[in-house]
């Protein structure tokens, strides 16, 4: 539904796993793989964000390239020969998933990640028992270029307490894989608010506000676009967080219905996630030209007026 300006895109021909594939110029290798129904795991990729190719789980082997290439970001070229299931590819994907699984809580990252972990044979336990979680604020205070020298008895993790500092969403950075999606959504890819950024370096990189101040002191406008793009449950609505904590989160009952936001005249598509006749989350379809998946605070959280019913009704 994007405006078609009438540009005709040339088709590029490449070989993927021995099959000839023709895709429009400007497509990525990932697009070509998907056109062939080749499943390619992705974590930091989202169709409505600029690729950062940080997670490297989508790597494929490109003949003539010294290293593997991120399929999500590499544009196709004529004559490319791509292998998506070579031993090198499988090894890198397994290791990426394993390195993440050994350092981050992936338990809310969805069924795909669980399946990939099985498929690629991830064994996070071989790096030793996970280290104790960091105290609140400890990781926020780490200084680039310096770290505690490890003795190897435990595997370092990003585990830390959940940040709960506002009524709309929580930040559970023990689940953060540093995919940059939230930063992109808060920044130039959608909201242009820049309330959060990547800070620190190396294993101590973290998503944070300036000086790690609480969200209400930051520039955050609570559009929740960061939640919308978070793949691991590190960012989630307070309502989901509370339902999960109370053991009342029931994805089996969930229905998703697309409708239009009840507020301004932009006409954002809302996907209402409903469990037990209650809206538990609101998202927006990434493939709709009006919003490309992004919303404002009213669209994302302003649905409560249909749920605040008088006592006894």
């Amino acid at each position, binding site marked *: 539904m994007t405006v078609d300006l009438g540009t005709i895109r040339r088709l590029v021909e490449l070989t993927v796993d021995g099959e000839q594939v023709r895709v429009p110029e400007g497509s990525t290798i990932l697009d070509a793989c998907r056109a062939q129904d080749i499943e390619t795991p992705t974590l930091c990729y989202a169709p409505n964000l600029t690729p950062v190719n940080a997670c490297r789980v989508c*790597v494929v082997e490109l003949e003539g390239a010294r290293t593997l290439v991120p399929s999500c970001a590499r544009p196709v070229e004529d004559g490319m020969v791509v292998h998506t299931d070579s031993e090198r590819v499988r090894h*890198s994907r397994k290791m990426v998933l394993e390195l993440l699984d050994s350092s981050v809580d992936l338990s809310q990252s969805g069924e795909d990640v669980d399946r990939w972990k099985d498929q690629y044979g991830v064994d996070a336990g071989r790096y030793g028992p996970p280290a104790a979680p960091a105290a609140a604020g400890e990781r926020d205070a780490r200084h680039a270029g310096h*770290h505690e020298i490890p003795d190897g008895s435990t595997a370092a993790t990003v585990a830390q307490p959940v940040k709960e500092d506002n009524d709309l969403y929580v930040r559970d950075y023990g689940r953060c894989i540093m995919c940059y999606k939230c930063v992109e959504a808060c*920044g130039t890819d959608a909201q242009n608010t820049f309330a959060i950024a990547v800070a620190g370096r190396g294993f101590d990189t973290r998503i944070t506000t300036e000086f790690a101040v609480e969200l209400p002191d930051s520039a955050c406008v609570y559009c929740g676009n960061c939640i919308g793009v978070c793949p691991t449950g590190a960012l989630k609505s307070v309502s989901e967080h509370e339902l999960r904590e109370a053991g009342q989160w029931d994805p089996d009952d969930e229905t998703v219905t697309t409708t239009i936001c009840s507020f301004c005249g932009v006409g954002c598509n809302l996907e209402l996630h409903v469990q037990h006749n209650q809206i538990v989350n609101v998202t927006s379809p990434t493939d709709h030209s009006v919003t490309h998946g992004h919303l404002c605070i009213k669209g994302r959280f302003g649905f409560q007026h249909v749920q605040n019913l008088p006592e006894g009704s």
Partner: protein
Amino acid sequence: MDLKFLEAVPTQGEQAAVDGLVGAPGEGDDPRFAAGGQHARDLRHLLLPALHAVSDTAGWISQGALNYICQRLSVPPAEAYGVATFYAMFSLSPRAPRVAHVCDDIVCARLGGSDIADELAATLGPAGSGQVVTWLRSPCLGLCERAPAAMVQLAGDTDQAIAPATADGVRTAVAGTGNGHVPAGGSQPSVSAPQTRRGDGQRLRLLRRIGVVDPDSLDSYRSVGGYAGLRRAIAVGPGRVIQEVSDSKLMGRGGAAFPTGVKWDAVAKAPVRPHYLICNADESEPGTFKDRVLMEDDPFALIEAMTIAGYATGCEQGYLYIRGEYPLATRRLQAAIEQARHRSLLGSDVMGAGFGFDIELRRGAGAYICGEETALMNSLEGYRGEPRNKPPFPTVSGLFGKPTVINNVETLFNVLDILTEGGPAFAQTGTERSTGTKLFCLCGAVAEPGLYEVPFGATLRELLELAGGSTGSLRAILLGGAAGSFVDPEALDVALTFEGMREIGASLGSGVIMPVDDGTDMPGMLRRIAAFFRDESCGQCVPCRVGTVRQEESLARLANGTEIGSRAREFALLDDLTRVMRDSSICGLGHTAPAAVQSAISLNLLERGDPE
């Protein structure tokens, strides 16, 4: 732009520091708002200099100072915080205004650096403690030929490098006590480049002016033939200059060994304007100090070479990005740039020849990754020094998204002789595919550490002999620095050329040749290398961000004898890590982070060196 600031306000000193860089606020500027519009947002590239200005003044970066920087440069505070916390030299929490950075990296640690650190810990308290005076451990400071090294940072005063350092000397310098004692901050060309005092100066190309010219004097530089290269360049025109460079077969000396002529030609022909030139002087590879010696003792040569490069490739603006830990080179280059400008050797009409070219000196702030060309560009633009995805390559889309030539210091130095002698004549030296001479940083277990220049083709053995041979019994040689690999003494007769190295699966890298003797604690050395990469990983991609941590943990277990399963399992785990880092990291840092460890394992260095 629409920015929200914290309540904090800057001190007068912090404000003055920022104003000194970007100018005082305008008449109508409302301090409660960031400037709006596209123009204001174009000031982002001043972020790193502004952070330096504040840090130099106050010793750390306060909330008020960051607010003020953001307001003046129209940068979101969260992003500026993300940038500031990327660099090891900045502190975002109060820090003592007087800091000693003590190198405990692979060369210095063994030559006294660790002892200095221990002594400072005993006398000044644990690293980072102290309200007025403190000390910190530092990765390689690039003073390896005079190890051990330290650098003293004093808020409101100029930074000083000290080498060789002693615990007393460092304490005195950082405390500002002692009676007017000035630490050894100057360069010592005859020590750093031993060939220059051996009367064989005739045979030197890159080092021939070291110790000969007065680095503070443009006249001195001209008296030994300075600016002949640029004069010839102007006489023959840009096309011919590129032809000479192509004919010379000059390959980049920064590590990637890409043909310089090809790079220059691509940018010269790029239709998009403007073009930018960058000199990569972010020399941070542990064990490497060659560019520092060139810049400290022959700064005008670099200015001239950059001017030639800019002229040939159609750049009007050059950036010289120097690592933050090189205070002396920074001062001398800054002075050289100013003198060159004063004499119209830089500026809107260079040498009256009708072309404009100027150079801006930019300091890094403690980030090895910024030596990676695209990370360096992000750093220059005021972003975190994270490498970019390639393609596109810098010649197409580099600094500010424009076609960009980026060359290493040593590469550019070669251009001078190429211009005065001609490309084909230059190519006579060295081998068929590796032309010219090469600088090597001899350090570690070697009798006379220093910077040596030999024609390509010399063997490792010849180099070692030039430096008086190894101390102790030679166990291995680390080639190329921490990102390089260990080679067996059996490889001593291999020719030090790009192709020769490829044959033995090694790389010249930054030109480090570091003999390791049998007294070396190999597990300790490998753990220091692993710690270095864990610290210096930018954190962007998973293989490097987590892989460097897991590598360090495994090496710790191997060193402590607390392997999970068996040593063989640890080696297998390290091998798995190596493969994912080498195959799937974004940039060269991740690709090479496991190289030294892997080569050490394959040479059984870890086994044999294990203290029984």
